[in-house]
């Protein structure tokens, strides 16, 4: 019964103990007094050799260090086909200029945190950048004009474009002329306006061309992408793109990512985890790899209208 005696002894000590000296009677309650004024009662403890040993040492649990980025279970994830995701994103971005708003893609990888990262340049089939604003001189409302517009030209036409230039309404910084419209360009007499700006199309600067696609793509250049925190992000299209254009861009990009993944040495395996499509101010949609709309209420042609 050692514990009882110990308890009794401590009780006895409490009752018998007299203060070392009478305390000054003050109006301030005891607990509010500064700690120096209250008489400290110390009991013997096992560790009494100075310092702050009565503070219990907190055991800080060491976090488990993961070597790979976290990847989640995707079984309950809502995933969308490209056209369904585009329908939502076009609704979220309604009324915004279709060349400045972009579709963006984030490719999440199953990969280690250390080791080499994916980093490359890609020339997409339909260029996305808009800081180069290209105007194309070609016959009005021709298939060429349509092609130029789909490739991202900001202004297309013949007489309408010349008229805009004469009025000083120049919204482009690159000008291309198709060979078919060469005569019209010479007749239009805009050399004095375009020459000082360095915009006058000529064969010497390769801006007088028959291959609109090649010339425009050369002007726009390539996009750079790199992996950060296990995710590769890239602007994949303009809001005005058709589903087919976006799909082509996405396929080209995914192909490039896959070849890059395979080129990395065997000790650092990278696998595809998730592909998420979003837009400049829209939510993200996890893609399921399909293209066609899932319901009957939507047709692909619906997503080709002007934004």
């Amino acid at each position, binding site marked *: 019964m050692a514990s009882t005696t110990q308890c009794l002894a401590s009780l006895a000590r409490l009752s018998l103990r007299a203060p070392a000296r009478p305390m000054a009677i003050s109006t301030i309650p005891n607990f509010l007094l500064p700690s120096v004024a209250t008489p400290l009662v110390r009991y013997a403890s096992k560790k009494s050799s100075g310092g702050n040993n009565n503070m219990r040492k907190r055991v800080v649990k060491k976090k488990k260090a993961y070597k790979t980025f976290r990847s989640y279970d995707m079984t309950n994830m*809502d995933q969308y086909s490209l056209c369904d995701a585009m329908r939502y994103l076009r609704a979220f971005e*309604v009324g915004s*200029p279709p060349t400045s708003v972009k579709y963006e893609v984030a490719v999440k990888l199953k990969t280690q945190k250390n080791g080499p990262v994916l980093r490359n340049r890609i020339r997409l089939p339909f260029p996305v950048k808009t800081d180069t604003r290209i105007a194309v001189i070609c016959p009005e409302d021709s298939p060429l004009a349509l092609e130029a517009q789909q490739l991202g030209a900001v202004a297309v036409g013949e007489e309408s474009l010349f008229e805009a230039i004469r009025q000083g309404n120049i919204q482009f910084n690159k000008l291309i002329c198709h060979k078919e419209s060469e005569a019209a360009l010479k007749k239009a007499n805009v050399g004095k306006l375009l020459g000082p700006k360095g915009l006058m199309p000529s064969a010497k600067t390769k801006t007088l061309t028959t291959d609109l696609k090649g010339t425009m793509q050369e002007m726009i250049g390539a996009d750079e992408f790199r992996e950060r925190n296990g995710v590769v992000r890239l602007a994949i299209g303009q809001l005005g793109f058709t589903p087919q254009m976006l799909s082509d861009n996405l396929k080209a990009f995914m192909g490039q990512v896959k070849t890059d993944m395979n080129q990395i040495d065997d000790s650092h395996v990278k696998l595809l985890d998730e592909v998420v499509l979003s837009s400049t101010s829209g939510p993200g949609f996890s893609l399921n790899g399909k293209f066609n709309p899932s319901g009957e209420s939507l047709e692909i042609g619906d997503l080709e209208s002007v934004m």
Partner: protein
Amino acid sequence: MLTLQKLLTIRNGPGAAILPPDVTRIHMEFAMRMNDGHMGPRKFWRDNLPRLKFWNPAVPMIVNRVKDQSGPATMSIYIRDADADADADANTDVPLSTPTPNSSTTGHSTAPPPAKGERVEVISMKDMHSDTILASLISKTKAVPVLPTPQEQIQMEELENLRQQADVDRARVWKRVEAAKKEAAMMAAARDEAASLKAAM
């Protein structure tokens, strides 16, 4: 959960309506900022137009925002008439289709002229509330509002319950945090008082 909520709110709510097939395009023109009666159109564009666009993905909805704050705010609804052929013979200079401009923030995408067989219904949106704009759009086009499906109704109820529970929880936590703050303030004040007393001694 948040994405679900976002998608639910774009499918349902004011503006979720299916336009009849004779509506070919919608053009809106208003100023960049809300001053001088441009708040209603702005709100309509932000709150209701995405829903309308979701349910009518094929209909071009063009927003042309201009710098001039004092200008008009108009909505042009292009409707293809059923008896288009009869009108078409009357004036042959009207083109079969007119190009629809892209949305613009520089005011360059003015409303296109109506094509052959199209008529334009114009709503002057200046000083109008977005709800009034929506109501007049629906009455002029005879659009059919979309109601949530039973499944969506259940999801919306779940989200609403979550929201209400969040309010309750927030109040509870706020109470606790306030009490802790009050006690800390009292202790600090008392400590200050004690320190000043000690300094005076």
